[in-house]
Structure formats: structure tokens, C-alpha cells
């Protein structure tokens, strides 16, 4: 690639950012560059990912799409677990809840993908406000149990009392996704230049949202919130005694992580045109914990890799001839090995190898 188009993109994005953040451009020029390089890196990665995945790793585009969806979920979850130090065991409420909200919205209000996405996002944020408000009164294990309880409550609510809305145990089947902006058929093919890389429009849509999510998460972690969240993780009582309203920041961490879960849940409904009841079950909450820890808590990109590896073992390794039936065992072994060898997850391992090879340091 020549330098010219790349520079043009960088300048355009930089200008857009200037408008958002106002003046002071000179002072953070160097940081802005890093922010942009993070976004560009993600863009390139998601663009070439399906091609490499399908050709060299026995993958298929639908699974690549799911990996990105769970990656968004895990990135948000890590803001809560890795950065703020709060372990929620009920994030299925926000993922599954948003998927249902998006599905029902698409069937009864509007089938525009962007509005459907927004509906799921808003639902997750409102739910997080309520669940967070009630659960964050307690810390540690009590918080985990409370969130688990809310998760299971929503599962049983969706299973029967609300079955007239959710279609109960059969899952919500009437998801109706229209054309993006009235033009692009999400379940259709991809026009020529892109078709060399991807064969599916849903993937393109999910990939764009993934890049935006990474950009948002990156910005949040580099805002005052990022520092405050880590301060709460490190020493909650000290954070209170420098004059921070720890309780409200914790609630914000919870809501922000749920917003990412909401985006992921909506995309899940859009991608599959179906919402299974299991998306609210506690195992879904457990999966996201494992994905995040596997990828590396407290890093921006780690959770994406964790989600990818988990789904790879669940969907590809499970199809291997002899090993296949034992995929749960393999997943467990991988998890144990990772936690023992690389307590900071895949991303921690990548950092370690990189610092060994190049001697450079990265945050």
C-alpha cells in the first residue's frame, strides 16, 4: 500500500476528532497518532481475517462473524472485569436481553439494521442501570451471585411468563432484518473489490461495528474513566478518599460494559436472524468470563483473541476426527495451561514473546 491514501484517511479522522474534542490539538498530537494506529490496525486485521481464517485454519465466514460479535462482548466485559476489577456472572442478561430486544424490535417496529442495533443497545443500558444499581451495593462474591441471580431471573422470565413476547423455549424466530440504509442487503453477497477478502455482507457490517467498538473502548480507556477504573480496582478505599464517587464510577463501568454486550447481542440477533433462549442462560455469562480471562484481562485486544480461541475450539476443534468429541476437555486444558503459563492471557503471552524478541515495551 502506498503512503498517500493512508495519510488521507489519517488526516480525515484526525479532523473529525478535533471537532469532537475541541482545540488542544498540538498537545496530544502524538497520542492521537496512537489512537489512529490502533483503529487502523484493527481495520486491517478484521479485513484480512476471514480470508486467512477460511483458507488456513479450516474456518468459515459465519464463525468469523460470531468471533467478532463475542469479541465486542468480551472487550466490554473486560472494562468491568479487567479494568475495574468487578466480576459479573450475569452479563447474559445484557447480551441475550439485547438480542431479544433487537429481535422483537425488528419484527414489530422497524427492520432497519441500525435502528435494531440501537434498540438492543438502549435496552442493555437501561437493564444495566437497574441491575447495576441493585447489585453494586455489594462487593466481591456477593456481587457475582447477585448478578448471576438477575441473569437466571431473566432466563426464566423469557422462558415462560414472557413467552408471548419471546416465543419461549423455541427462541425468537421472527427476526426480520431489512436492508442497511434501505440499500445494502446484509444477507447478500459482497461487491467486487471487497469480495476478494470477504464473501458475506453481514461480516462486513459486523466488522465495521467491531472497529467502531474497539475505537470507543480505546477512547474510554484513555479518558479519565480509564484511570479512575484502574484506581478502583487497585485500591477502592483510597479512591474514595481522594474524593471520587466510587459508587457512581462503578455503576458507569457496569453500564459501559453492558452497552458493549448490548451491541454484541443485537449483532447476534441480526447475524443469525434468530434468538435462542440459551442466550440468556447462565452458561452464556460463564462463557464470556472464560473468553475474557483466556484472552487477557486488563488489555484492549486480549478479549478479542480469547473469544476467537474459545469459539475455534468449540466449533472447529469439536469437528476434528478423534479429538472432536473431547473439545470440552481440550478447552479446559487450554484454559488451565494458559492460566498457569500466561496469567495475563493470550495477550500477555504475546507481549511476553514480543518483549523477548524485540526488547521493546508496550502498554
Amino acid at each position, binding site marked *: 500500500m502506498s503512503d498517500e491514501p493512508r495519510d488521507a484517511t489519517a488526516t480525515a479522522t484526525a479532523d473529525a476528532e478535533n471537532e469532537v474534542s475541541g482545540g488542544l490539538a498540538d498537545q496530544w498530537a502524538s497520542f492521537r497518532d496512537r489512537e489512529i494506529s490502533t483503529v487502523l490496525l484493527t481495520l486491517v486485521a478484521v479485513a484480512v481475517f476471514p480470508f486467512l481464517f477460511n483458507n488456513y485454519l479450516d474456518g468459515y465466514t459465519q464463525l468469523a462473524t460470531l468471533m467478532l460479535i463475542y469479541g465486542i462482548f468480551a472487550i466490554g466485559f473486560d472494562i468491568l472485569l479487567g479494568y475495574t476489577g468487578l466480576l459479573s456472572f450475569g452479563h447474559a442478561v445484557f447480551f441475550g436481553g439485547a438480542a431479544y430486544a433487537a429481535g422483537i424490535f425488528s419484527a414489530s417496529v422497524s427492520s432497519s439494521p441500525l435502528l435494531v442495533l440501537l434498540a438492543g443497545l438502549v435496552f442493555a443500558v437501561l437493564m444495566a442501570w437497574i441491575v447495576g444499581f441493585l447489585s453494586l451495593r455489594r462487593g466481591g462474591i456477593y456481587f457475582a451471585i447477585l448478578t448471576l441471580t438477575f441473569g437466571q431471573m431473566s432466563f426464566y422470565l423469557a422462558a415462560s411468563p414472557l413467552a408471548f413476547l419471546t416465543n419461549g423455549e423455541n427462541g425468537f424466530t421472527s427476526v426480520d432484518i431489512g436492508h442497511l440504509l434501505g440499500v445494502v442487503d446484509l444477507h447478500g453477497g459482497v461487491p467486487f473489490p471487497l469480495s476478494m477478502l470477504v464473501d458475506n455482507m453481514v461480516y462486513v457490517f459486523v466488522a465495521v461495528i467491531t472497529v467502531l467498538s474497539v475505537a470507543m473502548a480505546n*477512547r474510554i480507556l484513555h*479518558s479519565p474513566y480509564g484511570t*479512575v477504573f484502574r*484506581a478502583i480496582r487497585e485500591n477502592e478505599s483510597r479512591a474514595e*478518599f*481522594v*474524593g471520587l464517587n466510587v459508587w457512581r464510577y462503578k455503576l458507569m463501568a457496569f453500564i459501559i460494559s453492558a452497552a458493549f454486550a448490548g451491541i454484541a447481542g443485537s449483532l447476534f440477533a441480526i447475524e443469525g436472524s434468530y434468538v435462542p433462549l440459551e442466550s440468556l442462560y447462565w452458561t452464556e455469562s460463564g462463557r464470556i468470563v472464560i473468553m475474557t480471562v483466556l484472552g487477557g484481562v486488563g488489555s484492549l485486544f486480549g478479549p478479542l483473541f480469547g473469544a476467537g480461541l474459545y469459539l475455534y475450539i468449540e466449533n472447529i476443534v469439536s469437528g476434528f476426527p478423534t479429538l472432536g468429541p473431547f473439545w470440552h476437555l481440550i478447552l479446559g486444558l487450554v484454559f488451565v495451561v494458559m492460566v498457569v503459563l500466561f496469567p495475563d492471557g493470550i495477550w500477555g503471552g504475546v507481549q511476553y514473546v514480543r518483549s523477548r524478541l524485540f526488547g521493546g515495551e508496550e502498554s
Partner: protein
Amino acid sequence: MTVLETERLTKQFGGLTAVDEVDLAIEQGEGVSLIGPNGAGKSTFINLVTRRLDPSYGEILFKGDSIVGMEPHQVVQLGMSKSFQTASIFPELTVEENAVIAALAAEHGSFRFNFFRHENAYPEVTRVADEVLKSVGLYDERESQADSLDYGNKRRLEIGIALAAEPDMLLMDEPTAGMSPEETKSTVELIKEVKRELDLTFLLVEHDMEIVFDISDRIVVLNRGAVIAEGTPEEVQNDPAVQEAYLGGVEE
């Protein structure tokens, strides 16, 4: 102006009265030390004033307003900062980030809705943090992880965090506990310097009599939760009740 005032402040734990009807007033710019034998109720008193504990009864006024019923962070936002007995820092963050957190809280208040603003949009916060690090002599170490500092420097950082909140009054709970003689000396210098430069009002809880007599304008002696003596270092030193309860046997 009276910065901090308590009226009949009392804390009972079951049958035990840890703090017993304490009346105390601290004026602007005054350096007051609270001393007393172990279990005299010094730490409980500090915890009441910083709103970590609820008093059984009594009143606490900060700059004329009652702070009973406030959350700890609200009291800090009013201008009362606290340095802890142990090095209460943010261990896995850098030294600079430690100070930034306190500066953020001072500049932005207890909560702000700014999670989409890049932190570099707030140069003032970094400036305050750097200034504080310079004043506690840790500026050169700002890139290190706070955990890697030695104990004396951790305590200095801890005091720095308390100062970065730009307080009107600083509560210090044994700031030199566990320090070597040199570290103690430099910390005492630091406190004196900060008091002189910022006209800081402080309330100090300390065991080391040398320090107490060195830096206090006034000394309050607690025993069994109650104030038994109060005055300048000389007065307190010569008070028979104090010698009886606390300094007893020590020849001065």
C-alpha cells in the same frame, strides 16, 4: 477561622466508649497533634472525622458546616484530605498515575460524565500531578510502578496523593510509621515545608514524641477516649495528668 470543630463527639462500640464527648477546634493554619497511649481512641477519632465511621452522637463541623451524614468522598471534596497509616497507594499504576487520580478528583469533582474525552484534553490535571510529585520529591520516579518504590517513598507518595487533592486540611495517621530514621527526618521536613508553603492546617496522629514536639503548634492528649490535656508542646510536656497517663516514667 475554625476549620474543624467537634462537639461532644462520641463513638461507642457495644459497651466500649472509644471516643468520649470530644470537643476539639482547629484553626486555619494550625498544626495540631493528637497523642495518647494505645487504644486511646485516636484512630477512631480520625475515622469519625473522615466519615469512615458514624458517630454514636455529637457533631462534626468542617468550615462551619455539619459533615455528619456525608459520604467520605464528599468530605474530601469539601477540602479535607487524609493520609493513611499504611502506604495506601495504587500499587500497579505508575507513580504519576497515582498523583493524576488525586488531581482528577480535585479538578473534576467526585464524578463527571466524560468517558469519551481523551485524558490529554485535561492538561491541568497532569500539571497539578507533576507539581505534587515535585514537592514530595518523586518526580524523577514518575514512570515507575508505584509498587516498586521503597517503603519510605511509598509513604511520601501516599502523602502526595493526599496533597494532590489540594486540601484545606490534612489528616495524617502516623505518617512516619515504619520509616527509617532518615526517611522519618525527610518526611518531617516535607510536612513542615508543605505547611509553610501552603499554609496547611493539619491534624496529626503520631507516636513519635520527637516529631510531635517538633512540628505541632498545639497538642491534644487523649486517654480512654477523652481529652485529658491540651496546649502547646511545653504545657503538655509539663502537665502532670499527661505524665501520669502517657509519659509516665519517661524523664524529659
